[in-house]
């Protein structure tokens, strides 16, 4: 028990798991027995969740949003990797710099320009998401590339590798695990954007639209139920990414403090 309050301590797995379960149980109990006036009770949220699933197609809407999010993430990752790797050439560095700064642009104004450029609502939604995710991914990925040390590059060069081969070995292959981590961390931003974009383009539905409707009619229990579903989906996605990292990059967690 003492180890739970000691700085930098490494408590036993069982102790830590028990602590997490205890904290979650405490939170649920607080929710059950001390309901706040504005905050819906646990029972109301569970009922709203059931209703959303059975009558409003929550699962189908979630799937629609998730497939759009994954599609956007895949394209954004490829684009961001390309832009980031091109920073090896000085000519392309201003592009990466500009792309990184574009994360300050607001999406609301941007959707108008996207609507002018592409034909369907789905295309607008997708292009806004791709744009939004790409600028965040470029920021993370270029900072990973910037951690490359002269020692690492020199090491590759002393093995007779040319500049491109050294870059491929040290930056592309050597930092692929860190790039995956950047993608994992920035996937959350797509969920933030998708709820906004789906309210702007309502023709295709999606969990964002469902959330918007619940919010509009002040169904706070429904709002909370959807938020919890999004939270659980995000946590599951995080877990999948961690699993992928362990499977494809087993060296990644070696030599780091737990």
């Amino acid at each position, binding site marked *: 028990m003492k180890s739970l309050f000691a700085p930098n301590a490494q408590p036993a797995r069982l102790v830590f798991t028990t602590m997490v379960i205890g904290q979650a149980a405490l939170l649920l109990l607080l929710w059950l027995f001390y309901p706040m006036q504005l905050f819906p009770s646990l029972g109301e949220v569970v009922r709203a969740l059931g209703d959303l699933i059975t009558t409003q197609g929550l699962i189908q809407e979630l799937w629609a949003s998730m497939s759009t999010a994954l599609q956007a993430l895949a394209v954004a990752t490829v684009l961001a990797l390309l832009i980031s790797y091109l920073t090896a050439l000085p000519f392309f560095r201003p592009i990466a710099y500009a792309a990184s700064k574009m994360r300050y642009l607001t999406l609301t104004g941007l959707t108008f320009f996207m609507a002018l450029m592409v034909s369907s609502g789905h295309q607008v939604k997708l292009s806004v998401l791709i744009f939004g995710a790409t600028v965040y991914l470029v920021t993370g990925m270029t900072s990973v590339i910037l951690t490359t040390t002269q*020692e*690492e590059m*020199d*090491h590759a*060069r*002393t*093995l*007779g*590798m040319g500049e491109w081969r050294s870059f491929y*070995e*040290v930056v592309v*292959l*050597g930092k*692929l*695990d860190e790039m995956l981590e950047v993608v994992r961390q920035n996937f959350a931003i797509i969920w933030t954007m998708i709820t906004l974009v789906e309210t702007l383009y309502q023709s295709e539905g999606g969990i964002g639209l469902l959330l918007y409707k619940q919010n509009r009619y002040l169904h706070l229990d429904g709002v909370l139920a959807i938020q919890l579903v999004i939270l659980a989906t995000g946590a599951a996605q995080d877990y999948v990414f961690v699993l992928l990292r362990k499977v494809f*990059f*087993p*060296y990644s967690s*070696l*030599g780091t403090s737990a």
Partner: protein
Amino acid sequence: MTALPYNYKDPILTLENISMSFHGEPVLRDINAQILDVTRPNMRQGQVVGFYGRSGIGKSVLCRIMAGLIAPSAGTVEVGLAQQPVTPGMVGFVQQRYPLFDHRTLHDNLLVAALRKHAPADARQHVEAYLERFGLAPHRRKYPALLSGGQRQRAAIAQQLLCSDHLILLDEPFSGLDVAMIDEVKRIIVEVTTMDELNTVIIVSHDIVTTTALADRLWLLGYEHDAAGALVPGATISPQHQYNLAEMGLAWHENVEAEPEFAQFVEHIKNEIRGS
């Protein structure tokens, strides 16, 4: 103190008038040194040479120049029996922290180096031979993060040997090591020199005792003073700071550290460093 018989043959590495400045500030100045292939009767072994210098004097810069990683502001570096201008990959260079590719297993680290010089089948054979010779075979499937300091160092040296042309440069190989580890590194260095007559290990270090015990030629990097006694910027190698330990009878002795002449020489070097 017995000078053992030896002969010098062709040059293996030549530094000619090497100077290096960063932002107009000289770091190295007019460095001249030539490493010659040394042969000993009835012996088939390479050699060890050393460059001394205080911390921060520019030893790592000199290493990078000798490895062809940066071009000097002036002067030339020529390597090999053909005395060609150095390019990256011609001189194996083991940096201070023994870098390896962390995303590759030990076997793959060596293979990626061997493939630079050999066809795939040949490269695999070479890797197997080096893993055995350097006592790394049981660790072939490990990633570098799981290797001990000694294993990592051996792996880094093996990797460089697999793709360099006999010359291998070690930057501060004894830095931060305990006595047992220093002995281990010394053993590896001797092992490398016995692998091929042309194998030459260049140690760049501030560890006077260990480097002197291994080397047959030494160069001391230091600062010179002008006629008015002011320090001339840029470290260099003065003619009096070039030592032929073979000629002095301090090379290739089994337990040279125990010889009084060795202690005297080390003391002399220390005084020279203090005075520079």
